[in-house]
């Protein structure tokens, strides 16, 4: 899970793994590792989810955390257009070291969509950078399962990790 701080990476994992959502923001320091079994996808598989600290002026993402990954989600906060730039930079850096690893861009906080500051141009630009863009809400769960399951399938189809 990559993205700027506060975009909802931890909340997306919590919603996906445990089906719960907390309104309270709790910053991630380092990495949070969770597991989730997908029994209905390709005969069943276990996902190990690395929820990485958000990147901002206080913390940078350690490239070491990306070793061995099979796929990644780049998360944007639909209410904060500035998180697009952070996501784009993270994705560019990640793709430089892991060019074959599939990824999906998530535009999170869909439950606040009336207040989104992204316009269609922003979404269109995202689509040019990312072959897969999914709108999600960690709060309602909309799009969350789809995002992780699609990434799992992409990862399997691409042949696993880059190690």
């Amino acid at each position, binding site marked *: 899970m990559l993205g700027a*701080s506060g975009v909802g990476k931890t909340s997306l994992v919590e919603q996906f793994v445990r089906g719960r959502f907390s309104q309270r923001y709790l910053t991630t*320091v*380092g990495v949070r*590792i969770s597991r989730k079994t997908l029994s209905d996808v390709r005969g069943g598989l276990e996902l190990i989810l690395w929820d990485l600290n*958000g990147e901002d002026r206080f913390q940078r993402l350690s490239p*070491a955390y990306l*070793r061995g990954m099979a796929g990644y989600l780049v998360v944007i906060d639909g209410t904060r257009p500035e998180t697009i730039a952070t996501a784009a930079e993270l994705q560019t850096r990640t793709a430089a070291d892991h060019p074959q690893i599939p990824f999906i861009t998530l535009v999170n906080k869909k439950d606040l969509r009336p207040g989104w500051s992204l316009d*269609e141009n922003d979404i269109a630009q995202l689509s040019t950078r990312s072959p897969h863009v999914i709108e999600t809400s960690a709060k309602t769960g909309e799009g969350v399962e789809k995002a992780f399951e699609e990434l799992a399938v992409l990862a399997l189809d691409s042949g696993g990790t880059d190690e």
Partner: protein
Amino acid sequence: MSGSHNGDLPASILTSLDVAVFKHLGGGDFELSGDLPDWLADAWDDCAANSAVRPHERFVFLESFLEDALGVWSGGSTRDWISSGPWTEVAADGSELTLEAIAIAQNGHQALMLKHPTADYRTVQDILQKSRERDMAYADLVREINKREILLHCIIHDLSSPLAGIRGSLNVLEDDKLVAASGTRLLQISQNQAAKMQQLIADILTSFRAEVSQMVPSIVSLDEAPCLRIASESVASTLRPLGAQQNVHISVTEDSAPRDTARVAADAARLERVLFNLVDNALRYAPAGTSVELAVKDQDQTVTCTVIDSGPGVPEDEVDSLFERFHQGAGKAGVVGLGLYFCRITAADWGGSVSYSPAQSGGAAFTLELPKPTG
């Protein structure tokens, strides 16, 4: 890599340090020195003292860290120790265990330590938490200001459109010399007053800036819930004179359900503004000699009002951006582009929606769908 020995620290010292120490045997193999601290034993029940273990098989995070650690242990690094930084293992029940790993190479000894993050970790987390909360609060404030600015633009849009119509009509009266000489003076006064009114709108908007926030959004009680049919008729009535100028007839058609069932969860004033914008938009595109229809339908859980015109419809490549801010239809460069955006965000505030579809007649059909009030 060859095996090594970390020197034999008494188990009591390791216990008092509250850390788990593993001698590196080579590759991914280790041997636990002493006992596991209680806080770690609970999470790693098959790790026994003086037995070979593979910590990265219990903590997947270490798979990555051991690559860096091997650099330290092999002498390939300029440093004789390296920290993983904190990481958190989240168990299936949601419980969390935050750890830090340290790889050390000293005097030929190679060891891996697992420990609780230092007190600094909590301090860093607290500082980061507060700093990020402040950043996000600031961003929220900026967004709120931006939202109010949008509302101001909407008001300008709403007030400017009819005023522009008035000024245009006055200019036509003057240009086509439709006013008798005795009325010329009154015409000039009207033109001047309309111009002053435009300036006044700008001044009023400035002074009412602080009050704009009160416009969003309000809870509507069942008793106050407006009827979508009545609101549609009211707006149609207001805009009929403008339609008549364009030779466009405005009609309201209803289904046969009782009026009381057409109540919607909205506030009356803004509901009429939404409908006004939809009909005003239709009038911009409706050719002379056609009509604009407001079709009200009582659905099961919602009530809809579809505004249908016989214009050219919306080009396919514009449909997706139709309800975005500052969208300007083809050939409508003078339009601010906030009317439909306002409709969308307002309907969404009430739990409803505004959507577009091509009309069967070939024109445009905009449907406002609002939930019925509950409770």
